[in-house]
C-alpha cells in the first residue's frame, strides 16, 4: 500500500517546465504580479487567470473538444509546481481547474461539459467549493443544506461557510441533502448541484481572515431555484462523487509548496552570508521537501494510471505531512536568519516570513484537518 511509482521527467517535460518558468519570470519582471506565499489560495487575479487560459494552461489534461489540451497529469503537475514556486496569483481559477473540471468530466452531462469546460479553460469561469457548513466541518456528512424537488428543478435552502473566493466565483458545486437526514445512513441522500452564485436568493457575506483579508465567505441560500440540468451525476450519489475528487485535492504540490518562496529566500540569504552551518540546517528542510515531493508525484502518476484504489492513503499522507512541513518553514527559517516579519516589509525575507506565519494556521485545516486525515490513514492501514 506504500509502493508508489517513481517518475523521471522526459526531455519534453523538462522543456515544458522551462517554458512555464520563463513565462512566469517574464511576468514578474514586467510587474504583472508580485510573488506571494500561499498565492494559490489567496492570490486572486482574474486578468492573470485569463492570461493563463490563453496559454492553454487551464484544464490542460482535458479533451480538446472541451477546450483542453489532452496533456498528461505529469505535465499538469509540472505546471502547478512552477506556479507555486513563483508565487503566482492563480487562485481565481484554481478550484475549477483542479476539481470542477475532473468532476464534470467524470459525472457531468454532455450539456454541462460543453457549457462549462471551455469557459473554465479560458480562465473566465470560476467555481467555489460548497462543502462546509456551520455545524458540518470535519463531520461533513452531517450537512443540512437541503434541496426540495419542484417542477423542473430543485429549491435550495441553507448555508455554506468557509467558501474560498465565493465573492469572485460564478458558480458553486454544493453538496446538499436531497433526502431527509438519516443518522444510520448519513452518507446517503446527498447530491451535488451547480448553483449560479448570481441567482436570486443567494447572499454572499465576507468572513475576514485573521489578517483582515477577504478570502472566506458565508453563502446563504433562500429558496434558490436550481434547474434539473444543473444536477451533477446522480441524485443521492453526492458523497461518492465528492470522495473521488479528494485524492486530487489532497495530494497536489500545493500541499507542500505554500511557503516555498520563504525556503528559497532563506537559502539565498544564507548564501549571501556565506553561512555554511545555516545552509546545512536548510538542507534538512530541502530533504523534507524532496521526500514529500516524491510522494506527491507518485500519487499523481498513480492517478494518471487510473489506480484510484491505492491513492487514498498516500494522498492523505501528502496533505497531512506536507502541510505540517509548510508550517514548519517559518519556524526553522527565523532561527537561521535574523528577521522582523512584516507584511509590507521591503526585504523579501521579512515579507515572506510574515505571509507564511500569518497564513500557516489554515494549511493544516483547509481541505481536511490533519486529525481527520490521520484518522483515515490509520483506519485504512489497519483494514488492509
Amino acid at each position, binding site marked *: 500500500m506504500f509502493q508508489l511509482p517513481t517518475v523521471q521527467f522526459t526531455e519534453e517535460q523538462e522543456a515544458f517546465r522551462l517554458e512555464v518558468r520563463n513565462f512566469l519570470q517574464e511576468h514578474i519582471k514586467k510587474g504583472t504580479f508580485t510573488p506571494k506565499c500561499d498565492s494559490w489560495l489567496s492570490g486572486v487575479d482574474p486578468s492573470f487567470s485569463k492570461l493563463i487560459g490563453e496559454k492553454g494552461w487551464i484544464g490542460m489534461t482535458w479533451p480538446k473538444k472541451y477546450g483542453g489540451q489532452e496533456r498528461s497529469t505529469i505535465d499538469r503537475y509540472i505546471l502547478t509546481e512552477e506556479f507555486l514556486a513563483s508565487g503566482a496569483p492563480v487562485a481565481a481559477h484554481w478550484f475549477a481547474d483542479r476539481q470542477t473540471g475532473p468532476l464534470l468530466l467524470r459525472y457531468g452531462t454532455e450539456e454541462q461539459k460543453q457549457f462549462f469546460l471551455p469557459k473554465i479553460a479560458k480562465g473566465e469561469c470560476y467555481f467555489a467549493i460548497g462543502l462546509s457548513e456551520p455545524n458540518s466541518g470535519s463531520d461533513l456528512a452531517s450537512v443540512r443544506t437541503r434541496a426540495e424537488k419542484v417542477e423542473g428543478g430543485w429549491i435550495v435552502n441553507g448555508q455554506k461557510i468557509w467558501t474560498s473566493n465565493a465573492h469572485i466565483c460564478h458558480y458553486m458545486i454544493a453538496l446538499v441533502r436531497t433526502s431527509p437526514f438519516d443518522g444510520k445512513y448519513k452518507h446517503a441522500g446527498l447530491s451535488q448541484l451547480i448553483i449560479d452564485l448570481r441567482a436570486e436568493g443567494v447572499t454572499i457575506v465576507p468572513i475576514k481572515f485573521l489578517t483582515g483579508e477577504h478570502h472566506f465567505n458565508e453563502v446563504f441560500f433562500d429558496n434558490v431555484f436550481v434547474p434539473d440540468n444543473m444536477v451533477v451525476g446522480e441524485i443521492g450519489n453526492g458523497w461518492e462523487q465528492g470522495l473521488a475528487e479528494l485524492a486530487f485535492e489532497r495530494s497536489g504540490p500545493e500541499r507542500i509548496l505554500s511557503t516555498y518562496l520563504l525556503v528559497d529566500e532563506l537559502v539565498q540569504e544564507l548564501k549571501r552570508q556565506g553561512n555554511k552551518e545555516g545552509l546545512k540546517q536548510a538542507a534538512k528542510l530541502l530533504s523534507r521537501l524532496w521526500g514529500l515531493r516524491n510522494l506527491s508525484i507518485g500519487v499523481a502518476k498513480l492517478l494518471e494510471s487510473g489506480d484510484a484504489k491505492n491513492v487514498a492513503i*498516500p494522498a492523505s499522507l501528502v496533505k497531512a505531512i506536507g502541510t505540517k512541513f509548510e508550517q514548519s518553514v517559518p519556524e526553522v527559517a527565523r532561527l537561521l536568519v535574523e528577521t522582523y516579519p512584516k507584511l509590507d516589509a521591503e526585504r523579501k525575507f521579512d515579507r515572506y516570513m510574515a505571509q507564511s506565519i500569518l497564513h500557516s494556521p489554515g494549511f493544516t485545516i483547509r481541505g481536511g484537518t490533519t486529525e481527520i486525515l490521520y484518522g483515515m490513514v490509520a483506519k485504512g*492501514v489497519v483494514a488492509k
Partner: protein
Amino acid sequence: MSEMKEMILDVAERMLEDHVTKDVVDVLEKGEWAKDVWKLFEDNGMISVAVPEEKGGAGGDLEDLLNLVRLTGKYAAPIPFAETTFANFLLETGNLETVDQVATYSLQEGLSLQNGQISGTLDNVPWARHAKHLVALVQKQIALIDLADATIQPGSNMAGEPRDTVILNNAKVQSSSLLTDEQIFHLKSIETAFKIALMTGAIEKINQLSVQYSKEREQFGRPIHRFQLVQYQIAQLAGETAIALAAFNNVCAAVQSDKVLHEIAFARIRFEDAITTVTAVSHQLHAAIGTTHEHALHQYTRRLWSWRDEGTSADYWSGHIADYLLNHDDDLWAYLTKTTGAAVKN
C-alpha cells in the same frame, strides 16, 4: 522494476520470512551467525547479484541488489550480505577481480600503504571476524586484503551486530587499484544507498509490527487501534514508511540511470527524521512489551539506532549540499527540479 525482478525479490522475501525468525536473529548475540541462510543466498546466486555474468556473477543490476539489501534489513538477517556485496562493488569499481567468500569493507581513513603492505587500525569493521576478505580504501587506492593477515578484536554495535577492530601490521595487499576523486565520491554515495536500503527495510518491518500489535492488543475492551491517540501513532508510522519507501525507490531510480544528483544526500538526511520518529513512536505504541528482549521490535529499532551512526553520516551529506549551494549560482528551484544533472559515473 521488471516482473522478473519482482519474482526474484518475492523468492528472496519468502526465504527470509521462512528462515530468519526472531530466534535466528538472536544468535548474533551469542557470537554466531546464520550460516544456513548465507548458504541459501549463495545457492540462489544472490551473493553475486549485480556482478556481471561474464565475471562469474548472477547478472542483475544495482537496483536489484539494493532491493535485496532492503529485504535483509526488513528481516534483520544475521548475515554479512550488504558488507560482502558492497565489498565486491568496491572491487568492481577498481576493476579488480571480485571474491566469492564472505567479505567486509572499510572506507575509513587512517591506513597507510607502503611497498605493497598496509598498516593501521580500523575500528568497528562490520563482520570482520567472520570474513575472509577486507576491501579497504587506502590513500585513494582500493585494496584487497586477506583477513588471515590481520589481528581481529571482536566488538559489537548497539544491536549486537559484529563490529570488530582490525589491526593491520604490514598486511600484504592481494590486489589494488588507484581511484579518482569522482570514483571515491561515488563509492560514498553507493555506500550510503546501501545504508538507505537497510534502513528502509527496518522501517517497513517496524511499521508492520506496530500495525499488527495495535490489532492484537486490547485494552478497555477493544483493540488499541480504535483509540484516536493510537491512530495518530499509526498514521505517523505510515507516513514515515511511505516517505522512506518513496525515497528509497527514487534513490534506486537515480542510481540505475547513472544520474545521481542530490537524491542520495536528501534521502540520507531525511532518514534522520524518519528514524527518530519511527523508533520513538513504535516503542510508545508497543509500550512495555516492546522494551523486552523477548519481543522482536528491538531487533529493528536497535539496528536503526546503530546504522545511523555508521558509514558516511547525514552530517556529511548536509555539508555536501551546503557546499554545493555555496558554490553554485543556479536558482534553488532549478536545482531542486533538475533530474538530469551532472552524471556521476564510475
